[in-house]
């Protein structure tokens, strides 16, 4: 199972890096969304995969009697999903507002904060 997921993670990461290299915000946004999914899958795989054995201790037992799935990565991923989703939502709105206010979604053309021909500092009185 792990090799399959490794390939999937690789695909997600490479697609997201490709998208994030674009100068258009909307593509970068999609790249960020893919990246966060790739990372979640990575944490899940790094926690070792063991299929279909819930981490539940049978009644009357003190410890699990057989190998079970690792519940910790799922808790980590749950946190990461919530965070990355909220950030994605924020970035989506930010990107849209920037598009409205600046009239472009190409980061090379966003030169309001750093104008293209900035005055040089004075050289003398």
């Amino acid at each position, binding site marked *: 199972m792990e090799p399959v997921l490794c390939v999937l993670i690789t695909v997600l990461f490479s697609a997201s890096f490709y998208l*994030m290299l674009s100068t258009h*915000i909307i593509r*970068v946004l999609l790249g*960020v969304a893919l*990246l*966060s999914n790739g*990372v979640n899958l*990575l*944490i899940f*795989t*790094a*926690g*070792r995969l063991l299929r279909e054995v819930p981490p539940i201790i049978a*009644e*009357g037992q*003190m410890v699990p009697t057989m190998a079970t799935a690792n519940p*910790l*990565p799922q808790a*980590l991923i749950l*946190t*990461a999903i919530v*965070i*990355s989703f*909220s*950030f994605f939502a*924020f*970035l989506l709105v*930010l*990107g849209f*507002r*920037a598009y409205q*206010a*600046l009239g472009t979604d190409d*980061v090379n053309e*966003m*030169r*309001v*904060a*750093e104008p293209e021909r*900035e*005055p*040089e*500092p*004075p050289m003398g*009185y």
Partner: protein
Amino acid sequence: MAAESHAVDLSHAMFTQPVAFADWLVIAPVVTTIIGGAICLMTRKQTTLQPWIGTFVMALLVAIDAALLLRVVNNGPVTMVMGNWLPPFGIAFTVDAFGALMALVGAVIALTGSVYALVDVRTLSRRYGFYPLLMLLMTGVSGAFLTGDIFNLYVWFEVTLISSFGLLILGSSRPQLDGAVKYAFLNLIATTLFLVAVGYLYGVLGTLNMADIVRSVRELPDAAPIGTIAALFLLAFAMKAAAFPINFWLPASYHTPRIVVGAVFAGLLTKVGVYSLIRILVMLMPENRAAMSDIIVWLAIGTMLSGVLGALAQNDIRRMLGYLVVSGIGSMLVGLALGTADAVGGALLYAIHSMLVMTALYYLAGIMRRTGGAFDLAGLGGLYGANPLLAGLFLVLGLAVSGLPPFSGFWPKVVLVEASLKAGEGLLAAAILLTGFLTTLAVGRVWLFAFWRGGPLGTPDGAEHLPTARVPHETRLAAYLPVFFLVALIVWLGVWPEPVFAVANQSALGMVDPSAYLDSVFGGSE
């Protein structure tokens, strides 16, 4: 009932003793700021009340952090585990002198910010949530300094990040949206890379508790891919700390928001990145840090020089300050590059100095704008004649940021240069000194044009066109008080650095040899 038949001795899984009252201090900074933020959110329409609540909570935070530092310095690191689970399970907050000192200085910065905001953040921005966001920012920053769990560190990074987004776009002007796009995307990518590194680390070690990581890394077989993970951490945190060559988000964004927001960011955010670099590479993975030491040396030199050269090329004072923040990060990276206790202590001292000075300089730029009517060197002039007090304050801060005695910037540089020479890194020492010289030029030019020149660009030599504007009477105290407070601290650090030196040395020793840290976490179970 099944539960009754399971009544067993829990002492091998949990702390059975209740937490000592004084240990609650460990989470008090986070709890206080969350509650303060919630109260501010509830009273967000009471725009005259909010600054008082904000300032009170921040003053409380300073007091709590000071008490925490005092306790840690006297009794060694303190640990508190959520849910009373025995480490390494459960989320641990472990406070050592390094974290507590950074948290204290951070709280001081936030306190001055909440006072200066009276000048800078008017009714509408208060309604849009300046104070709640500032409190949440402090929650994230304090949490990052105090936590002992690496995934928890990631969560605090995200808390800090989302609050900083809110603060950055408060006002929604066009430059702000432009700066925020670059800031937001690059910082989010950096924290995601951090999460990737955490995921791999967990895959290799099976633990997230920092103290447990220290133990497990030592026992790893040689073939374990821990070097790659350390490099990923370096990449992620170097991006957060604005280290060359991945620092371009900082000068693109820090000059766009309100001055108080820029000031607080300059004081806090990049330093959290530097703190994490030192915590993870010096304490958790010392061998891998040593292996990457040559690369970090060049990162440090590149950051210092690119920052200060950028500062020299700027006409706008705020942009110049942004580049000076970057340049200061380079000096802190020197401590990371060398990794000895002396150097790490020097980096900590430099971080404290940089937090105080850069924040104060941003505040001063705001006052200069209100007095002289501009942020750029061409438009400013005659400030010395108009307001000698302002000129005096700028001179102190300018000398401090350049690293000239008798102010706070001098001692950390002495320590760092000495440590570099001792390690045989003459180039690094030369870069520190050259950066100091170039910083003096950049700051001296502001002094020359904004203060000494008789008026804005074009004023003939000898003529005077003094600006007549003043900071309005009702906010004058709020504008000058934070600057005076920070300048007093800077002078104190320059003239009598002994107490802070002692704490910094103790912190750095604890970082290089974390046995006290480990004892604090595992003391109950071993």
